[in-house]
Every structure is written in C-alpha cells, then in structure tokens.
C-alpha cells in the first residue's frame, strides 16, 4: 500500500527529491548500456561524441567472426551442463535443508551458500588447486565443474524458497489419503516445485553464460564467450565488442524478464523476495 498522499494537498515535498534521486540512479545504472548499444551502431567505433554514421557494419563483422561463434557454442554447452549439475545437486540440497536433520547441517548450509557471496576468484582458485593436485587437465570440463559448484547455491536458494511456500497440509493430506512418501513426493511436492526449478534453471543458465571470475582460472584451450571477449579487450578495443555486448544484453534482458515473471507467478506475488533470496540466503538466513 502506498504511503498516503493527503487528498487535495500537494504530495509531501520530500518525494520530489526522492523521485529526482531515483531518476539519477536509474540513469547511472543504464548509462553504460545505452552507450554500448548506441555505439554498436556507430561507424567510427568507440570514442568520439556524438556518434556519427549509424551503421550495421560491426554486426556484419561479428557474424563472420568464427572464434566468437566457437566460444558461444562452448558457452552454451557449459551453461547447459552446469544447469544440469546445479539442479541435480541443488534440489536435493534444498530438500535436505528443509526437511532433514543431520550432524554438520549448519556447516553444510554455509558451505553450499558460500559461493554466492564469495568473490569468484576464491572459488576459482581453490578448484584450480584441486585439479592441479588431482592431475586433471584444464578444459571445458573443469569450467563445467566450476560453474556447477558455484551455482548449486542458486538452485538451492530458489527451490528452498519454493519449499517454504509449499503448504505442508497438502503433503499431509496426500499421506492421509493413502499415498506413501515417494508417491507424495512425485505427485505433490515436485509439481509444486516446477516453477522454482524452471526459474532456477533459467537463472543458472544466464549466470553461467556470463560467468568470468571462476572461469578465468579453470580455462583450458577452449574459450567461453566472456573469456573470448576478455582476451580481445586485453588486446585493444574493437567496436565489434559493442555489437556482441548488445546482443548479450538483449538475450539477458529477455531471460531475466521471463525468470521474474515465473518467480512472481510461482511465489503468489511475493515480488520483493524474488531476486533477493540470493542476497538473504548468502547471509545464512535460511534457518
């Protein structure tokens, strides 16, 4: 419910400042994105103001750029595999946290959620040391393992939130009507978790496509898209990057809007929690 604005009187003056502040912050948040998109159409590439010669050249160059597309393909593979791993281990983890009591549960919870807030460098390096000791060669597989590990926490958080919203009475009713634990699980619990799981999958996929900190240390011969872009950035700016960035932006945008809609629908309107569970969970608020 919104704060009352007295009928007939002008709005409480302070809200004008708040509105101005909000506009400034939004401008700040979107400025780079706007510049990026704008300059991806700029004939003279980056730099210079205002942009001149609107053109699709950079997009054309982009489409003929083989290494970029290889890396896109790699990223897709990795994202998909990471999604599978994260869900496979993250969903049971959420169930375990929600329902089971066992020694070391607190440590388990903290470990699972730690990668969410830990800077990626630590997750990446610790895994690097593991692979080094185990003698595993760095490749897309090691990246998959890295993403999977880092993103289990996302799956766990989303599914856990879904479990909290699940009405226990439904499961109890199922048991009361004669179904056993397994039947109840598949007929009642899982269908109710459909939306959180899909939401988590979407989120994991998007995060994996963009992941760079962990991937940085685990990369072998084949690049993922962010690392490919990174390599080019190190060598110098090409406006092509603007084009690929714009495309990434559009995809991310679509993905995240879909995820948000799913989240709101599944949560029955608990919008403020959508996207924040990650923040809260990393503080160990899942008790």
């Amino acid at each position, binding site marked *: 419910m919104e704060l009352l604005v007295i009928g*007939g009187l002008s709005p409480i003056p302070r809200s004008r400042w708040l509105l101005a502040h909000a506009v400034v912050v939004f401008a700040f948040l979107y400025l780079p994105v706007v510049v990026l998109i704008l300059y991806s159409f700029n004939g003279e590439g980056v730099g210079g103001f205002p942009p001149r010669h609107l053109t699709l050249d950079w997009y054309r160059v982009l489409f003929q750029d083989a290494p970029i597309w290889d890396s896109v393909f790699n990223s897709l593979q990795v994202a998909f595999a990471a999604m599978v791993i994260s869900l496979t281990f993250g969903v049971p983890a959420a169930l375990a946290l929600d329902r089971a009591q066992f020694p070391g549960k607190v440590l388990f919870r903290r470990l699972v959620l730690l990668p969410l807030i830990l800077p990626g460098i630590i997750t990446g390096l610790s895994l690097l040391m593991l692979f080094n000791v185990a003698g595993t060669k760095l490749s897309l597989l090691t990246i998959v393992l890295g993403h999977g590990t880092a993103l289990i926490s996302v799956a766990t958080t989303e599914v856990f939130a879904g479990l909290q919203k699940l009405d226990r009475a439904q499961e109890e009713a199922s048991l009361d009507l004669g179904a056993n634990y397994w039947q109840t699980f598949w007929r009642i619990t899982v269908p109710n978790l459909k939306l959180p799981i899909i939401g988590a999958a979407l989120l994991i996929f998007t995060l994996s496509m963009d992941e760079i900190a962990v991937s940085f240390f685990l990369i072998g011969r084949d690049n993922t898209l962010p690392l490919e872009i990174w390599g080019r950035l190190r060598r110098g700016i090409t406006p092509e990057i603007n084009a690929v960035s714009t495309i990434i932006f559009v995809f991310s945008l679509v993905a995240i809007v879909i995820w948000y809609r799913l989240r709101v629908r599944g949560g029955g309107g608990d919008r403020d929690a959508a996207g924040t569970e990650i923040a809260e969970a990393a503080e160990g608020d899942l008790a």
Partner: protein
Amino acid sequence: MATIPSSAAAVRPTTATAKSSLLSIRSVAKSFGKNVVLREISLDIAEGEFLTILGESGSGKTTLLRIVAGFESASSGEVWMGDERLDRQPPYRRRVNTVFQHYALFPHLTVEQNVGYGLRVAGRPNPEIVTRVAEALGKVRMTEHAKSKPSKISGGQQQRVALARALVNRPRLLLLDEPLSALDANLRRQMQVELKSLQREVGIAFVFVTHDQEEAMVMSDRIALLRSGELEQIATPREIYSRPATAYVAQFIGHTNLLQGEVRQGVVHCNSLSWATQLPEGPVLFSLRPESIQVVSAAKPATPGQLRVRGRVLQQAFHGATELIRVQCLGDLVLTVRTPSGTGIPDEVDLEFSAASAVPVRPSAGRN
C-alpha cells in the same frame, strides 16, 4: 401506532443532544476507482459519547474511520471538528488517535517507548513523558510490562498497550478499528467491559468499529449501522433494537420475524391474522421479535387484546438460558419464538403476541 419512520428521521440522532457536537461528518462519500464504498454519509459525534459504527465487511465502516483518522481522503464531503476542517489536515496534525485492528505496536520499541511515542515526537519534556506514560500504563494495568518488547506479550496485553499509546496523547476523539476481533470470546467480553468503563473514566469520545452486533449493543451510547456505504439507522441500542427502521436493521441486530401484510380500510391483514391500525393503505412489513411471542397452552383461552395463532414445531435450538423454536403456522407463516429453557414444548403449540410488538419497518432494497 407509530408511523413508518421516514428516511430522514432514521438518520437524525434520536438522543437528546445535551452534549455538544465534537465531530461533524458532512455528506462524506468515497470511491476507489469505480468501486463506491461510501455514499454521502452524514453524522455527528457528541463529546464524550461512545459511538459504534456497525456493519458487515464491505459496508464501508473501516473506510469511514480511516477518513476521520486521515489515512484516506474523502472523494467528496467534509469532516469538521469544532470549527476546523479536519479533512484538510494530515493525520499527524489531527487531535485524533487510533487503536489499530492488529495493534500496530512498534516492534523495535519497548512497551514504555511505544506508549511515549506520541509525546516524544511532540517534543514534550522528559519528566512529563515519564509521568504520563506511567499513568497511562497504570490505567490499562500494564505497568509491570513497561520494559518488555511487544513480541513478548500476549495479544490482549498488546491491545491494552495500543490503547494506552493512543490515550496518553489526550486526543479529542479516539478511533478503534475492530480492536477486539483478534481476541478469543472470553477475553473479548472482558475487554468490552473494561473498554466501556475506561471510556467513562477518561471522558473522551470513542468511535468504535465492529461487525459484531452484540458487542455494539453492550458498549455503545449510540449505534450507527452502515450497509453498503449508506447509513441505515443511527440510534441508541434500545431504540435500534425495539424500533428498527428497516428490515435489514431488524434482521442484522438480534433475531426477528419479518411479517408481510396489507392494510385495507384501517385493518392489517397478515396471513390469517388481522388487527386494527392507523397505518396508511397498502403493503406493510413488520418486525416481530421472538421474545415478544408467548407459547401458551391450547387449553388456556385467548387473552383479550392478543393475537393468537396455532402451529407445528419444526425445530428447537438450545441457546443456554433460552431456546429458539421454529413454528410452522397456517398459510406459509413460519415464526421463530424464544422461550425459557426447560419448559416442555409439545409438537403443536399455540402462540400469542400483541399487535403493538409488531413494529412496522421499511423494506430494504437489495444492494450490491
């Protein structure tokens, strides 16, 4: 025979207003988008009176309260307190305080700090705050919980703190938004008595909102019954009970029998009954309270001046001290009768009531 009350008379305060008018609600209407919640309500609240705004959910009673408190603005109409326009002021400038339905105690402050909040915000000096808070807590008997946080006290105790928090500011008017609805039945009855005596003690006008008609009857000096945003009747509990203005009022408050009849040449014809009347020609509706009907033995001769009817008992419901029985009489007349418990009721009974106890009421139009 009383004339059928006209609509104007029904909303005119029927108590002798020796007390002056504290709050004047003038033709206040409120709509949320296309949804009309209040339709031109006018009523006056006297100093020191206990007024209950009674109604079902959706009747607009809470909205009306919130307009007086300042949390909603009226779509049209005015609210005056004394000679000042109240509805032009933000809630924090009105000399009105509210006890909220779920108490709305500040969870991060102690009971003491909650109660002293209004005084602190007004910048009163510390010693004064301490004294007044202690006094207020004493009045609601929460002194020993002064340093507790709201989460540590029970619902009933929270409610008393909410009361103290509002009263300590010595408002000219106290608004109570269904404060007892979250309490269980026994505690509720206890609180009704306490609230009533508290109001007498502080002498401040209370405007109490509830959907519970028994509660309203027990506590109020006057009851204002709202239905779908309109004021059906405003009167003392006794009057509203014994002389309901409309069929809706008669049915909302207590049990009643509604009898449909026709007046022809000075005689009411109602099913098999008829009696003389001064009501004008035409159809007429009566409200007859179950307790006005006596069960008499068939052997006993008809009492002069009483109407008598025979019927078959359909149902008998035990209500503690009394019983309610439903009796199928001649024609399609079904009467509900209240009798003391314990008296044996045969299957066929004779019923008697006086013509005077059949109170004419206006029919109520169906409303959304």
